[in-house]
């Protein structure tokens, strides 16, 4: 089971409390995790990744296991600790603005 932690605004939008737990078939990557997330919560489409390019929105970051994975390939395998559920995959909003 993959654990995903979302920023507060996206939890509110999707009416989620706490972490999301997802079953991901096949290789566990940023893309497969986010695909599974958007399948369960379609209102999140376009809020994390651009609808057209599929790229991470500029003011969001992806973290796991105390590492910034934002610039990793979306198809790169996520760390074993994320795959095993020991660590969450974190979607984090930049601290910016007012």
């Amino acid at each position, binding site marked *: 089971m993959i654990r995903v932690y979302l920023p507060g*605004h996206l939890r509110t*939008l999707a009416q989620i409390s706490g972490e999301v737990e997802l079953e991901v078939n096949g290789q566990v990557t940023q893309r497969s995790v986010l695909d599974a997330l958007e399948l369960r919560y379609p209102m999140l489409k*376009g809020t*994390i990744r*651009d609808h057209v390019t599929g790229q991470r929105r500029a003011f969001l970051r992806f973290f796991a296991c105390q590492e910034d994975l934002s610039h990793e390939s979306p198809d790169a395998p996520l760390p074993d600790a994320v795959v095993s559920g020991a660590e969450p995959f974190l979607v984090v909003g930049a601290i910016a*603005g007012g």
Partner: protein
Amino acid sequence: MSKVRVLVGTRKGAFTLTSDGKREHWNVSGPHFAGWEIYHVKGSPADPNRLYASQSSGWFGQVIQRSDDGGETWAPVGNKFIYEGIAGTHQWYDGTPHPWEFKRVWHLEPAPGDPDSVYAGVEDAAFFKSTDGGQNWQELPGLRGHGSGPRWQPGAGGMCLHTILPDPGNPERIFIAISAAGAFRTNDAGQTWQPINKGLFSEYIPEPRAEVGHCVHRIAFHKSRPDVLFMQKHWDVMRSDDAGDSWREISGNLPTDFGFVIDVNTNEPETVYVVPIKSDREHYPPEGKLRVYRSREGGDEWEALTNGLPQSNCYVNVLRDAMAVDSLDKCGVYFGTTGGQVYASSNGGDTWAPIVRDLPAVLSVEVQTLE
């Protein structure tokens, strides 16, 4: 007895303000979508319980929310705004070509006869339509593909399509306005468009009388008389009596003809309201006095309406989508400020009072008159 519901979009959420027809005591609900920018909220003329809201954020992009119960509950609908075909380029601030990029929805306009049909005006400027209650959006690319698109340029607030006026008597005819391209009209439900900027003079552009490039801030009409259009341009208040084919200036005795909002009294088609702002460099009322100006002659002669409005040390702005009128008799007039006040007049502007004083900066104000 009639009721009114004022829909307020702010920098940090949406609010609904409700009152009975006397419009003396108000109930304030919100913030809805707390923390998000709400550029616009508007109800369907065909079903007043159907509301649409544009919710956006620099972090998370665009969301469209829909309510089917007058704003008691909301649900996100479709947020996929994809330009048709090759997006192409428009001019950037420095005149160089810049790719068309979707940023946000500025204005949602439910179609007059069908609660499931709604238009969206977006930045970078384009015109979208949904016919399924906002689930799916299609661009009507005839506007952007008019041929002048590569010459459009953003205003300071972005290159936004901010005004959509469907003709209530002719579903094929729609007026729109873009900063800074100008005003356009379609006579075939959005398939083809023509610029309607003849008579506009903008000395800040290379060709002051150009076909496109004017920074139109707002257009309004009286629903019974859609051939008569009133415009607040960047500078200049304008009027057209031929559905935009030609314009003449009606700034008259205004203390400054810069401003953003303009609207028309529901019961008196020749009574027009503007809020003069000092200049394009100083976005606040002249002399620190917040004054609505009213013309009862369709322009040229204007009177200051000050009763109940701050007349000293007031340095707020009133943004282009932040004025609305109800359809009661006497006409209610409402506007919101960047200082978070929403002012209301229940007597056509003779006197004013704040409904609320301390909201986040107000981006838009709409009002519904409910039976």
